[in-house]
């Protein structure tokens, strides 16, 4: 009797344990080998948009690292407060990825003379270079190239267009 009871008890415990285990077990084992969703999406967690050392953020529209143009006021080379975050993001990436190389392409709008605008556009590139260097990017990682007014993104003679042309483009030559 006693043994039978014991056996029954043991069986019940075993069964109960088995039951407890079966519920979570089939979940990872059985539905996982589904081939439809690409494993990349499943396995890689979304990058933290504020992790500027993560190169996946270059293509993440949520991240400042995906933004690579800084705009300027007329005849000015001061980085406006709203663009400092973008500059800091790239500085952080450069600081964490010492093999990365960045060309800062300076541009000006069409107003004023071409050679003076070469100087002005370089000054803009230097302003971004200075901020990035202060935040940990190494001098060897950054090159400033001034295009002056020679490479406009837009060719209409009005302020809307000019404001788009007064810019520094952050171009990665190595990530």
């Amino acid at each position, binding site marked *: 009797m006693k043994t039978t009871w014991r056996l029954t008890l043991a069986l019940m415990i075993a069964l109960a344990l088995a039951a407890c285990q079966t519920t979570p077990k089939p979940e990872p084992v059985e539905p996982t080998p589904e081939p439809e969703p690409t494993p990349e999406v499943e396995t890689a967690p979304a990058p933290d948009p504020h992790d500027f050392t993560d190169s996946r953020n270059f293509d993440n529209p949520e991240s400042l690292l995906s933004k690579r143009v800084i705009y300027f006021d007329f005849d000015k080379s001061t980085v406006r407060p709203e663009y400092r975050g973008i500059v800091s993001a790239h500085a952080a990436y450069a600081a964490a990825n010492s093999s990365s190389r960045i060309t800062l392409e300076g541009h000006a709008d069409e107003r004023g003379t071409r050679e003076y605008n070469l100087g002005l556009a370089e000054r803009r590139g230097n302003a971004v270079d200075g901020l990035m260097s202060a935040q940990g990017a190494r001098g060897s990682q950054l090159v400033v190239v001034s295009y002056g007014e020679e490479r406009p993104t837009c060719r*209409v003679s009005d302020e809307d267009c000019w404001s788009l042309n007064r810019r520094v483009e952050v171009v990665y030559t190595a990530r």
Partner: protein
Amino acid sequence: MTVNENVKKLLIIIMALLAAQTAYAQLEIEIISGNPGALPIAIVPFQWQEAGPPPVASVDEIVSGDLYRSGLFKPMDAADMVERPVDEESIRFGTWRLLKVDYIVVGSVRTPTDGIGHELIYQLFDVHTQERLLSQVTTVGPGDLRFGAHRVADAIYEALTGVPGAFSTRIAYITATGLGPDQRYELVVADADGFGPQSVVGSPEPLLSPAWSPDGKKLAYVSFEKGNSAIYMQDVATGSRELISSGRGINGAPSFSPDGRKMALTLSKSGNPEIYVRDMATGRLTQLTQHWAIDTEAVWSPDGRYIYFTSDRGGRPQIYRVAPSGGTPERVTLEGEYNARASIAPDGRRIAVAYGRGNEYRIAVWDIENERFTILTPGVLDESPSFAPNGSMVLYATREGNRGVLSAVSSDGSVRQRLILSAGDVREPAWSPVIR
């Protein structure tokens, strides 16, 4: 079509009629505003005495076109000439007085005795006094008949104004055609009347700042072909070229000294743009300016005593000057909020600049002695002034709609003409020195 109409309205189209000419896009020249006080002159068709057929563009047409475009002359249309004298004996001055012509030129073209090239024999008379003011023979090589005609125009211009003509000179300019990846830049050299454009450099990357050597044989310019600005010097006739500077930062704004032995240029290798002087024989560089500001667009005074340049050391761009040996720069332009890219008149007394006010940029001339501006052009995005080697005109770049065109304005502002490329932008004209 009378010449009077010409002066009022827009005209004169110089065409690439010679089949032999390379077919680069031709500049069209139009007179935008004329001079009512222009001198009436008759350039009688030159008698063609050579064996072959006469050229399509005749010598007298080229001479008339040159004089007309100067704004100082009102050449008579050949179709209105009731008589066509070829020498002094055949001129009936009374007829020309009735036609209200003040001056008359007669001449002929013949093959020199050695059989090579052309000889242009011509005479200039005052119709009223019947005085002979000029009697010359100009000899040019084969294929240089147009050049010879420009030389005739130069001589007539000088005889009647006291100032040497600048018609037998050339202009260099940059063209930009196509968009995006098809964008193409060319450095083009053409006769001063826009004829015979020849591309001397072509690149998918920007070209800018052409500058002539004082002998008119070389051009220095800036090219981005290596991904950054670099200065090259090129022989116009042979096309051979030399890399002058391609260091880190800006390599820009080349300008030859009047003796051709030195070149001023802008380099930002120190961290910001400074003017340097390069010895062309040794390649040795001397730094001329030392300031945190943008110092650029250096240009030599004709006597070589000063280098004028643009600097924003006072807050906004203004013209300064300094001795080529160094020293403390002094500010030259004392009025206006934005004055840049000086071109010095051959007399050294006036400088043409891009004069900016708000969003409007015009060409203005600063009288150095009298410290006064004269605004020459209506704007609104005028830049790159370049004085003619005789100081009579200033060539500059402007925009019409969204395209770049060239214009020339007489140095008193009374006459303006426009040089339009059939497609694309034209910019950064540089007028050559007188080629002898």
